[in-house]
């Protein structure tokens, strides 16, 4: 088995996450799809780390996880405060910035 198969799997997971972000309207599910994309990239980084025999990829994946944690905290806080004012978690309703 070739380690590049992991890269194919990660590419497909990333694509599924992209389609989810484009299709879904519930803001939380959109957010979960973004998490799926981040995890697909993490799998790519770990696989590259193994292919290249260096640990830098794993360190980068670690940083991605830290930043994803921070992003989830702020993003969910934004979703909660939007829900509190607009009583909706649909991304279609929050169109204030539309020109």
């Amino acid at each position: 088995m070739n380690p590049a198969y992991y890269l194919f799997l990660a590419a497909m997971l990333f694509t599924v996450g992209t389609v989810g972000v484009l299709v879904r309207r519930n803001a939380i599910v959109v957010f979960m799809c973004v998490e799926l994309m981040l995890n697909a990239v993490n799998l790519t980084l770990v696989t590259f780390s193994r292919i290249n025999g260096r640990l830098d990829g794993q360190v980068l994946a670690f940083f991605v996880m830290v930043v994803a944690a921070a992003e989830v905290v702020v993003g969910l806080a934004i979703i909660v405060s939007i829900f509190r004012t607009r009583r909706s978690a649909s991304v279609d309703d929050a169109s204030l910035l539309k020109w």
Partner: protein
Amino acid sequence: MDVLAQASTQTTTVEAVIFWVLAPVALGSAIAMVFARSAVHAALLLVLDFFCLAVFYAVQDAPFLAAVQVIVYTGAIMILFLFVLMLIGVDAHESLRETLRGHRIASLVVGLGLAGVLIGAIGRATLDAGALGLEEANSGGNVLGIAKHLFGEAGRNQDSYFLAFELTSALLITAAIGAMVLTHVENKKVPSQREQVIARFKGTHPTPLSGPGVYAETHAEQEPALLPGGEPLPGSAQPRVTGGDE
């Protein structure tokens, strides 16, 4: 080095079995997550997906990341997601009506195109590239290797990720404070009856005002009550009712 590289280019049969069992599970749960009707089902399917990824990390000589994946992602982040889901209402089903015509078809086309581009690029670039393997880098243990990369070794820490690591700590603190600021609600205290009485006697009208429309020609809410002299009683009419948002 060459011998080592040759040896580790071949993955073991166990790993192949694990991959071919868990890769369909990972991909299937991801697809099912996108198409799950309920957001809670989507979150649980994503947890399954993250577990599969943790196994992949463990198989690929990254035990530290596998543990962090389980603890941080499935343990903390997904629980946070479920918590917020429960907070803002699980039964908030999203409407299936398309607001943009052809939106879903276009999204699927974009997804297929992206998959084609990515898989084609990966296939051209890496299919015949073997893996060097991490035996050498992990010789002192995976956690020790990552720590050496993060904090640098004694005497030569200029090529470490130490500055980035410190910046992530600042990022985490900023995110925590930002979340608190975003979700903070000023707790308005309801005045007690005694406080209301004291405030009323300190004001201009200890007694209730006449209702709107008293002695006037109409009882409408916006008509002020009339004093015996015929002049309107200030404060007796409702402020103009405006159509607010809520």
